[in-house]
């Protein structure tokens, strides 16, 4: 591995890679990406889906030092050899979860032991759980989707985190942090932070912030930009080695998305368009804490193999309100699957499913909610394709939910009994009784940005 110089001029192109799209994504992606592209200025690593924090809350309950994505600590350690060899790639991540400082301290220990001390920036202030729990004003923190008052779930709240913008993470970078560890930050803001720190953009350069937000949105799901879940997936080269995505950003906000040479998949008009609209609402009004973005006039143009230029994003002032992602305890669930073989297998599967529910009822544990699917017969998206009943095999899937844990436990036992009491040709029972899991309801709401005070703590290398 060769040493690379630090591109500090703001006129140089900024190279930002993403090597983690969710908690549990490929753990060696960062190493592979840096092996291929040691010239990257930044790696962004995204660990937080909507309910990830509630899992971290359970971990933190058991151990106050936990509550973050421990995988990241290991990943940081795996990058020590690169940094010791002179690689200057910096990291911006939301791996801190509910305990960014705990995550940072663990990283510092691992990197010290690896003889690679670095300065770590810690961004906190997103946790607003106490604010929601103590609020006495019943008009506040209503559910954004249903308009229900917080009263209905307040006693059961598990987490409440405001989506922070890029500013505080950018400040940590400006103060020389090599790794910036945040909790809940809007996913694209990890990329926006890198751009703001490098180019010195102010918080009113809306079109540039919009461009960086679009860039961040495109790379935040990792290999979804390079062919993952693409309609054309079957045509991809080397699907076992999909490259992770890279943004090359210029000071004026124009950018190209690409991937490392020699990796599989493609960065094409096709993959970029699909990811551009992934999980968005009104294209004229994409809300982020940094900027409100319109992608209405965005164009996507191929500029060579695996190089796509994306331009035309327009930015407007952000909302004075921040989105809060809260979760609350909402009972228990369990789900299980069995393979059903035989003529008209879907009918057998459905009948076997009804038997399980009937037995639960007999046992005094009728579930509040349940759902039976004969997978293979068209039940995944019912009605979209004709239902097929003339199948010789299908998968029976049953899911139940209830406020009472015992109901989900009862289901778990009753499903297993189908192995000896179900139809001829019932098979595939190899993974044991399905586990009972808590349900975390999702409670999106708003808080005035002025009431949230994110702060940076710098953890010096020692």
């Amino acid at each position, binding site marked *: 591995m060769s040493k690379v110089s630090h591109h500090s001029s703001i006129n140089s192109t900024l190279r930002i890679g993403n090597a983690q799209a969710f908690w549990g994504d490929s753990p060696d992606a960062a190493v592979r990406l840096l092996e291929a592209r040691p010239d990257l200025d930044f790696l962004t690593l995204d660990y937080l889906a*909507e*309910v990830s924090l509630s899992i971290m809350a359970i971990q933190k309950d058991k151990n106050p030092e936990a509550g973050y994505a421990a995988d990241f600590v290991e990943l940081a350690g795996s990058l020590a050899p690169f940094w010791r060899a002179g690689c200057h790639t910096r990291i911006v991540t939301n791996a801190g979860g509910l305990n960014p400082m705990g995550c940072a301290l663990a990283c510092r220990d691992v990197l010290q032991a690896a003889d690679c001390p670095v300065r770590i920036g810690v961004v906190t202030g997103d946790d607003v759980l106490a604010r929601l729990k103590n609020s006495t004003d019943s008009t506040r923190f209503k559910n*954004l*989707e249903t308009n229900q008052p917080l009263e209905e779930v307040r006693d059961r709240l598990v987490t409440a985190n405001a989506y922070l913008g890029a500013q505080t993470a950018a400040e940590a970078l400006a103060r020389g942090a090599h790794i910036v560890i945040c909790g809940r930050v809007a996913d694209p803001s990890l990329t926006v932070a890198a751009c703001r720190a490098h180019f010195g953009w102010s918080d009113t350069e809306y079109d540039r912030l919009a461009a960086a937000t679009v860039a961040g949105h495109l790379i935040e799901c990792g290999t979804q930009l390079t062919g993952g*879940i*693409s*309609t*054309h997936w079957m*045509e991809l080269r080397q699907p076992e080695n999909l490259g992770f995505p890279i943004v090359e950003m210029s000071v004026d906000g124009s950018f190209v998305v690409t991937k490392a040479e020699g990796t599989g998949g493609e960065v094409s*008009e*096709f993959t970029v*368009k*699909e*990811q*551009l*609209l*992934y*999980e*968005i*609402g*009104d*294209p*004229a009004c994409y809300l982020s804490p940094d900027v409100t973005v319109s*992608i*209405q*006039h*965005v*164009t*996507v143009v191929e500029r060579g193999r695996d190089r796509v230029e994306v331009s*035309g994003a327009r930015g407007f002032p952000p909302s004075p309100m921040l989105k809060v992602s809260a*979760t609350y305890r*909402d009972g228990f*669930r369990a*789900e299980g699957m069995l393979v059903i073989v035989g003529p008209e297998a879907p009918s057998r599967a459905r009948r076997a499913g009804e038997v399980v529910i009937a037995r639960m009822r007999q046992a005094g544990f009728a579930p509040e*909610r*349940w*759902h039976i*699917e004969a*997978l293979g017969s068209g039940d*995944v*998206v*019912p*009605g*979209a*394709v004709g239902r097929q009943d003339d199948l010789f095999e299908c998968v029976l*899937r049953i*899911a*139940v*939910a209830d406020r009472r844990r015992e109901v989900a436990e009862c289901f778990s036992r009753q499903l297993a009994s189908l192995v000896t009491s179900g139809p001829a040709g019932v098979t595939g029972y190899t993974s044991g009784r399905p586990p009972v899991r808590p*349900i*975390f*309801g*999702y409670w*999106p709401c708003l808080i005035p940005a002025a009431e949230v005070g994110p702060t940076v703590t710098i953890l010096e290398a020692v």
Partner: protein
Amino acid sequence: MNGQSKRVKLREIAFARSGDKGSNSNIGLFAYTPEGYQYLRQVLKPETVARHFQALKPTEVKRYELPLLNAFNFVLVGALGEGGSRSLRVDAQGKALGIALLELEVEIPATLWAKCLREKRESRDE
């Protein structure tokens, strides 16, 4: 059937990707050609998409047009029931809705269909 037109699945003239946003699902749908986009603008109304997914009981389907991308964003309000964490469906996050939308059949002029197929082949084989 009229000899000048053909009944085809959307996947012959478009591609798609879907996901979730709370209890809503969105589907990005992309025509392979500008002509295909203009045609779909006329025939692929929000009601058409709502009917295709009626078993999921969306309370509303919104269609946003992105002509520079030959694309639409369909938002299926309420199609994921009570959202990803509470839904008991195997596809709680609506990941399969995009590819399922491509199974919708539309009536398309034969000449337009031929042009779409040709351009799709050229752009994917380059």
